[in-house]
C-alpha cells in the first residue's frame, strides 16, 4: 500500500472519510450482568469488550497489602480478530505491554486512595481489530470503570492520529497503520486537558508533530462529548428499567379525561337488615363471632382466607358463597362491606362481625343520601352511585397502578334529580405494590 494512496486527490481516505473525521462509534455499558462494570465499544470495525471487577479483596495472598487499590489489567485478543488466525498466547509480550500501559494510565486517574488493601480487575477482550487497538481499549476501559461506579478524576479518552501527504489524519484503520504511516496514540483527560499517555512508533518531522498532536486532542474531545452522552443515556435507561421492574406503581395525573367507562350500581338498600342472612347462616355464631376455618390462600390477589366470612365473600366455589345471591352482590352496600372485610395486605381481621357492619353503615350513610318516598312513606336512596372502571381513551396514567380485585372507584352523585347543587363523593381505593 503506497502512502500516496491513503488520501486520494479529492481528499477522501480509503473508507470514504475525510482526513479529520472519526470513525463511526457505537457503545453500550452494562453488557454483562455478572461483572461490576462492563462496556462494549465499536469504533469502525474495531470491537472491544471491557469488564471491571472491583474494588474487591485481593485474591493472591502473596501480594503486599498497600494503602491503595491495586489495578490488574488483562488484555486478550480473540483468535479470529485479525486477518490471519492467530492462536492467542498467554505470555504474548505485545499484549502484556498494552496491559501495562493501560494500568499506568488508570492508576493515576482512579482514586485508588479510597480503597486501601483492595484490587480492581480490568479485563479487555478484543473481538475484531481494524486499527487502533490501544485507543479503543482505553475508551472501553473508561466506560466500564464508570459503569462500575469506581471514582475517577476524569474520563480518559484516547485517539490516534497520523501524518501523510502533508496532512494530519485522524483515527487510523488497519490498512493505514500497516502502510507505515507514523501513528501517534494519545490519551487525554478532557476536563483538565492533560495528556495521560502518548506513543509514537515511527519517524515524523518535528514541524509536523504539533499538528498531529492537536488533531489527536481534537479527536479525543469529540469522543468525550459522544461517550459522555452515551453514558448518560445508558444511565437513564438503567434507571427506567429498575423503576418499572421493582414497582409497578404508576401514580400520576390522569390528564384530561373526556369519557369514562362506568356502570351504575344497585342502591336500593336502606337498612342493615340486608345482612341478616349472615346471622341465619353458618358464617357467624349467635353472638356475632365469625366462625374460623382452615387457612386457604387465593394467590393472584393474595387473600388469606381463614374464616367463613371471607370464604363467603371471596371464594366462589365454597358452600357459603350462595348465601348472598347474585342480585344482592350487585348492591353498593355489599361492595362496601366486601372491600372492608377483605382489607389490604396487612389487614388485621376482626373476630366479630358487628365491627364490620358498623363500619359499612358509617361509610354507606356518608356516601348516599336518602329521602322519604312521598307515596309509600318508605325511605329510599336518592343518590346515584356509579362504578368507574376505565376511560374511553388512553389517559396519562392508568386509573389504578396495578390490577387487583380490591381496586375500586365509586362516584356517588347526590341531587341528580332534584334542584340545588349536585354533590359528588368519590370512594376510591387502589392497591399498590408497596405491600406486595
Amino acid at each position, binding site marked *: 500500500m503506497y502512502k500516496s494512496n491513503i488520501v486520494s486527490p479529492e481528499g477522501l481516505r480509503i473508507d470514504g472519510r475525510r482526513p479529520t473525521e472519526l470513525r463511526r462509534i457505537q457503545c453500550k455499558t452494562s453488557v454483562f450482568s455478572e461483572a461490576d462494570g462492563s462496556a462494549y465499544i465499536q469504533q469502525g470495525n474495531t470491537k472491544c*469488550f471491557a469488564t471491571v471487577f472491583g474494588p474487591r479483596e485481593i485474591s493472591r495472598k502473596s501480594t503486599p497489602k498497600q494503602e491503595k487499590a491495586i489495578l490488574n489489567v488483562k488484555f486478550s485478543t480473540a483468535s479470529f480478530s485479525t486477518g*490471519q488466525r492467530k492462536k492467542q498466547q498467554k505470555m504474548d509480550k505485545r499484549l502484556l505491554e498494552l496491559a501495562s500501559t493501560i494500568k499506568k494510565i488508570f492508576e493515576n486517574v482512579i482514586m485508588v486512595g479510597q480503597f486501601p488493601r483492595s484490587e480492581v480487575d480490568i479485563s479487555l477482550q478484543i473481538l475484531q481489530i481494524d486499527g487502533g487497538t490501544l485507543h479503543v481499549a482505553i475508551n472501553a476501559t473508561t466506560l466500564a470503570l464508570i459503569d462500575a461506579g469506581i471514582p475517577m478524576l476524569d474520563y480518559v479518552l484516547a485517539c490516534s492520529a497520523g501524518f501523510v501527504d502533508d496532512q494530519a489524519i485522524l483515527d487510523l484503520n488497519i490498512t493505514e497503520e500497516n502502510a507505515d504511516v507514523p501513528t501517534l496514540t494519545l490519551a487525554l483527560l478532557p476536563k483538565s486537558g492533560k495528556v495521560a499517555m502518548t506513543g509514537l512508533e515511527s519517524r515524523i518531522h518535528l514541524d509536523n508533530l504539533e499538528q498531529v498532536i492537536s488533531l489527536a486532542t481534537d479527536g479525543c474531545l469529540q469522543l468525550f462529548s459522544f461517550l459522555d452522552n452515551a453514558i448518560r443515556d445508558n444511565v437513564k435507561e438503567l434507571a427506567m428499567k429498575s423503576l418499572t421492574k421493582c414497582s409497578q406503581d404508576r401514580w400520576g395525573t390522569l390528564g384530561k379525561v373526556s369519557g369514562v367507562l362506568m356502570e351504575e350500581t344497585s342502591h336500593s338498600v336502606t337498612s342493615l337488615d340486608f345482612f341478616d342472612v349472615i346471622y341465619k347462616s353458618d358464617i357467624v355464631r349467635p353472638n356475632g363471632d365469625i366462625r374460623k376455618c382452615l387457612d386457604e390462600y387465593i394467590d393472584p390477589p393474595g387473600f388469606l382466607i381463614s374464616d367463613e366470612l371471607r370464604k363467603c365473600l371471596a371464594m366462589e366455589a365454597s358452600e357459603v358463597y350462595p348465601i348472598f345471591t347474585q342480585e344482592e352482590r350487585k348492591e353498593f352496600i355489599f361492595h362496601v362491606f366486601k372491600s372492608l372485610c377483605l382489607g389490604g395486605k396487612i389487614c388485621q381481621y376482626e373476630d366479630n362481625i358487628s365491627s364490620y357492619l358498623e363500619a359499612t353503615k358509617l361509610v354507606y350513610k356518608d356516601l348516599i343520601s336518602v329521602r322519604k318516598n312521598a307515596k309509600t312513606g318508605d325511605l329510599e336512596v336518592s343518590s346515584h352511585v356509579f362504578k368507574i372502571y376505565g376511560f374511553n381513551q388512553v389517559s396519562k396514567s392508568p386509573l389504578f397502578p396495578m390490577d387487583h380485585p380490591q381496586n375500586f372507584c365509586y362516584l356517588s352523585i347526590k341531587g341528580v334529580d332534584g334542584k340545588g347543587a349536585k354533590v359528588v363523593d368519590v370512594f376510591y381505593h387502589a392497591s399498590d405494590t408497596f405491600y406486595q
Partner: protein
Amino acid sequence: ETNLINQASGSCRVLLDQTDILVGIKVEIGQIEPDNVNDEEDETNLEEDDLSRHNNIVSTEDEDVFGERNKGRIVCNIDCSPSVAKFFEFKKIEEICIEYSQYMNRLLNGKQGGIDLQSLCILKNSTCWIIYIDALVLNYGGNLLDAIFVATRGALQNTRIPKCRVEESQGIFDFEIGDEETEIIEGWREMPVCVTVNKIGNSFILDSTPLEDNCSEARLMVSINRKGQICSVQKDGTGAIEPTLLTEMIRSAQTKGKLILNNLDLVLSNEEKRIENLIECVGFC
C-alpha cells in the same frame, strides 16, 4: 445471530440466558498431516433404537481406495474471557476449555461430525482447507457446552470458503483460490448438537444453571444429529450413573436434541434471509 465478525469467514453469537458465546470460524490452507492426530479411535455410529446392531460399525477410514490422504480437518479451540474467572478457579477454567475443545475436535473430525471432510481437500496428499473454530465464552450462566455447539452450528452455516480451482499441467497439480466466489461448507446440516444431562440425586436435569452445575454428581454429554442418531456420548464428573438411568438420560437427550435442532434450523434460515436483505444485525449494542 450470525455474521457479526467481518474478519472471520463465519461467526455466530448465542445468548442462553446469561451464557454468552461467540464463535468465529476462519478457514485457512494447510498441509494434510501425515500422522493422523484425529482419527485414532472410531466413534461408533449408533442406530436409533437398536443398540445391538453395532456390528454395523462404519470405520472412519482416512484413506480412500488408493490409499491417498484426502481429508481436510477441523481444529476447535475454546477460550474463556476473563469475566468467567469469577465463577471458577483459573486452573478449572483451563481444564474445562481443554476438555471441551478435545470433545469437539473428536466429534467433528469424523463421519459422526457430519461435515464432509473430503470436500475440504484441495490436492490429495498435500494441501487442504483447515477450518479453525474458535469459541469465546463471554459470560457464564450454566450449560456451556450446549451453547457452544449451537453457536458452532450457526457459525458453520454462516461460513463461506473461497472456491478453489485445481489445474493440472504436465503432471503437476496446482490450485488457484478464487477472489469472489465462495461456497458453503458441505454437510454443515449434519453437524450434531450436544445436550448435557446432569445427574442430581436419583434423577436428571437438562439445561442447568450455574447452581445446578455445582450440585450435579455426574454429567453426560450426548451429541445428537438431525436424524436423531447418537454421535457421541461422554461422561464427566465424579459420580456414577446406574445403567437404567443412563439409558433414560440418553433417550431424553435424544428427544430434546432433535427439538433443538429443528428450532435452530428455523432461526438460522431466518438469519440467512436477514443477511440477504441486508438488514443490520443487533450486534453487541
